[in-house]
C-alpha cells in the first residue's frame, strides 16, 4: 500500500463548501458526495464526539443505570433567528428541557434536519454552531443525525427534529399525574418572553423592544430542585400553549384544579405592553427557558429559595395552589378579587382587533 493515511475518510470533494455565499441545493440531500461533504465540513466538526465519529447508521453509547427517559420535538420556528436565540438553540434546549422536567439527566440527542433548497449555507452554519454551543452548555452529546433536502417551496428554511435520551436516577418519580390538592404551584421566572421575541421579528408585526427569548437549558436548575425537594410532584416547561395550556394539561392528568393569583404572575412591563398592543394573552404565549413545579405546600418556600439561587430561577415565584375540582378548572383570582377561568388555548394566538 502507498503512504495514504490509514484513517477512514470521505470521498474527494473538490472545492470546499462555500459557507459564506453558498446555498443548499438538492444534491446536498441526495445521499452521495454532496451530502457527505455537508456532513464532513459542517455537522461533524460542530458536533464532534466519539460516537458521532463512528459514522455508523446508529450511535452505540454507554448508559448509566436507571430508567430511560425519551422525548422528541420538531422545531419549525419562523423566522429562524430571533432575539435571544435561533432554531438551533431551541432544538437543543427544547428537548433537553423535556428530559430535565421529567427528573432525567439529559445525555444524548439525535437531530434530523429537513432543509429547503436555497437555504443559505451561512444560515445553516449559524444554526449548527448554535446547536453545538447549546449542547455543550447543557452537557449533552448530539450522537446521531440525518439530513434531507426538499425542493424550494416544500419547507421553510430549516426544520429540526431532535430526540433526547436521559437517565432517571433511582428514587426520582415525577409525573404530571401527581399534583394533589393543597400543593404549591411555582414558576421559575417571567413569562411569555420567547413567543414575543419571535413575534417581534415577524414581518408586518415587527416591533422593537428589549424582549429577548428566554431559551435556555433547564437541567442545571432541575438537578438543584430535585436534590432540595423530596416532595417535588412534577415539573413541566410551559412551551407552546404557554402557562395557561400547560396548567390545564397538568390538571387533566392529575384530576385536580388550580387556583392562581393574578398579582403573583411574573410578567415584565414590555411583555404586558406588547400583549396589549396586539390583543394577546401572555398566559398562552410560549416560554423556552421556564418551568412550572408542583410540590407540597410546606416545601414550597425551601424550593423557591433553591430555585432563586440558580441563575435561571432567580425570579421564581409561587403563583398558586392545587385545589380539588371536579371540572379540573384553572381559576385565576384577579387583582380585583374576582375570578376567571384560564381555559385550554383554542385556536392560535393571533393579533386581534377586538
Amino acid at each position: 500500500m502507498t503512504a495514504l493515511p490509514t484513517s477512514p475518510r470521505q470521498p474527494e470533494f473538490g472545492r470546499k463548501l462555500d459557507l459564506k455565499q453558498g446555498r443548499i441545493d438538492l444534491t446536498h440531500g441526495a445521499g452521495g458526495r454532496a451530502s457527505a461533504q455537508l456532513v464532513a465540513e459542517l455537522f461533524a466538526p460542530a458536533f464532534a464526539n466519539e460516537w458521532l465519529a463512528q459514522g455508523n447508521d446508529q450511535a452505540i453509547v454507554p448508559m448509566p443505570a436507571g430508567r430511560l427517559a425519551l422525548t422528541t420535538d420538531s422545531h419549525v420556528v419562523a423566522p429562524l433567528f430571533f432575539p435571544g436565540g435561533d432554531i438551533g438553540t431551541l432544538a437543543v434546549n427544547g428537548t433537553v428541557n423535556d428530559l430535565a422536567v421529567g427528573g432525567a439527566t439529559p445525555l444524548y440527542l439525535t437531530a434530523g434536519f429537513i432543509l429547503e433548497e436555497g437555504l443559505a449555507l451561512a444560515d445553516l452554519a449559524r444554526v449548527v454552531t448554535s446547536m453545538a454551543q447549546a449542547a455543550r452548555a447543557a452537557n449533552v452529546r448530539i450522537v446521531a443525525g440525518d439530513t434531507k433536502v426538499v425542493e424550494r417551496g416544500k419547507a421553510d428554511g430549516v426544520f429540526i427534529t431532535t430526540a433526547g435520551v436521559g437517565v432517571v436516577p433511582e428514587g426520582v418519580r415525577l409525573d404530571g399525574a401527581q399534583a394533589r390538592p393543597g400543593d404549591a404551584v411555582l414558576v421559575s421566572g417571567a413569562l411569555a418572553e420567547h413567543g414575543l421575541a419571535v413575534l417581534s421579528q415577524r414581518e408586518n408585526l415587527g416591533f422593537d423592544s428589549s424582549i429577548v427569548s428566554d431559551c435556555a437549558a433547564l437541567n442545571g436548575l432541575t438537578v438543584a430542585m430535585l436534590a432540595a425537594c423530596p416532595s417535588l410532584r412534577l415539573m413541566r416547561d410551559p412551551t407552546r400553549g404557554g402557562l395557561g395550556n400547560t396548567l390545564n394539561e397538568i390538571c387533566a392528568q392529575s384530576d385536580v384544579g388550580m387556583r392562581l393569583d393574578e398579582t403573583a404572575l411574573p410578567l415584565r412591563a414590555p411583555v404586558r405592553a406588547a400583549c396589549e398592543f396586539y390583543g394577546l394573552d401572555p398566559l398562552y404565549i410560549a416560554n423556552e427557558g421556564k418551568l412550572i413545579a408542583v410540590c407540597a405546600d410546606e416545601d414550597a418556600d425551601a424550593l423557591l429559595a433553591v430555585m432563586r439561587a440558580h441563575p435561571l430561577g432567580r425570579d421564581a415565584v409561587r403563583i398558586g395552589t392545587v385545589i380539588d375540582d371536579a371540572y379540573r378548572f384553572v381559576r385565576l383570582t384577579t387583582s380585583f378579587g374576582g375570578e376567571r377561568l384560564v381555559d385550554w388555548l383554542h385556536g392560535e394566538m393571533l393579533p386581534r382587533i377586538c
Partner: protein
Amino acid sequence: MKYVDDFRNSEIARGMAARIHRAVERRRRYRLMEFCGGHTHAIARYGLTALLPPQIELIHGPGCPVCVLPVGRVDSAIELALDHGVTLCTYGDTLRVPGSKRMSLYKARAAGADVRVVYSVSDAIALAKAEPAREVVFFGIGFETTTPPTALALAQAREMALDNFSVFGNHVLTPAAMRHLLAEDADQSARLDGFIGPSHVSTVIGVAPYRAISRDFVKPVVIAGFEPLDVLQSVLMLVEQINQCRADTENQFTRAVTEAGNTRAQALVHAAFETRDSFEWRGLGAVPQSALAIRSEFAQWDAERRYALVPRVAADVKTCQCGAILRGCAKPSDCKLFATVCTPATPFGACMVSSEGACAAHYQYGRFVAPALSSARAPRAVTSA
C-alpha cells in the same frame, strides 16, 4: 402602562364598589346593557359582577364586530378566497368565525385558499403594491373605530391607482344597532334601564349620536372607557341618573371622547362609504341603516362589485340562543349548546366566536359551575411540548 394601569387600581375599585352599593335603591333593579364587547371583557376579566350589588344586572350587548358578522358574509369571504382565487387579507379575529356548512376561513386556508392575517389594512395595501400580479382583497370588518383606516386605504388605492386591491366591506354602525334593540319591541325597551356606551367607537363618532338615542327612547347612556374603573364609574353615573329619573347621555371617557369626535376620520369615512338600507347582524337579523357600503366612486376597489358577489342568505343555527342573549333576554348558560358542542374552538353562534362574545367570555372567565361536560373521554396525549 401609562393611562392604562392607573385605571386598573383595585384599591380604588373597592371604594367605587362601596359607593355604588350605597347609591343603589334597595328595591330597585338596574338593568344596564354594556353594548361593547370591550366592556363585557373588562367585566369578566376583572370579575366586576362580584363587586356590584345584586340590584345591578349587566346585560351583554351585540358589541363585537366579529361576532355579529352574519353567516352569509363569511360565506362570501370564503367564496372570494376559494373560488375567486384572491389573496384575502384579514384581521386575525375572523379566522374562526363559522360560515355555513361548518366552513371557516381557517378551513378555507386548509382547503387551499390564500388567507393572510394582517395587523393593519396598510399591510394589505403594501402587499398589493409589492405584488401587482396578485389580487388582494381586504376583508373590512369592524365598528366605527375600524372603519376610518379602511376608508383611508380606499382613498390611497384610488390615489395610487392600485388596481389589484379591493375591499370587501362589512363595517357596521353601533347607534343603529342600539336603536334597533330599543325600537324592535316595547318589551325589550322596557327591560333596559340604561346603556354603558361604546368607548373607542365614540372616540371617532363623538357624543352626539347617543344624545339622540337618550332623547328618542328616554334611556340614559354613559360613554365609558374600557378599563375596569371606567366601567365602575359609568355604572355609578347610570345609577345616579336612574335614581334621579334622568335620561341623558353623559361622557365618562372624557380623556378620549369629545363632543364632535374625530371629524377628520368622519370625513374620510363619509367620502368612501354610504349607509346601506339594511344589513344582517348575526343574532339580530336585518337591522336597518346599520352598515356601510362602499360608494360608487370607489366601485373599482369594491370587492362586492368587482367579483359580482351575490348576497348569500344563510340562517343562524336554530338552537343557538344568541339572538336572545344579544337582546338581553337570555344568558349563555340558558343555551343547550353552551360548552357542550358550542365551545370557543368550535363556535356555533355570534356569542362564542370572539373571546369578547358573551358566551365566550362566560366560557373563559365565568364558567365556575359548568353544565354537564361532554362525555368525550379520549385517551391521553401522545405528544407533549
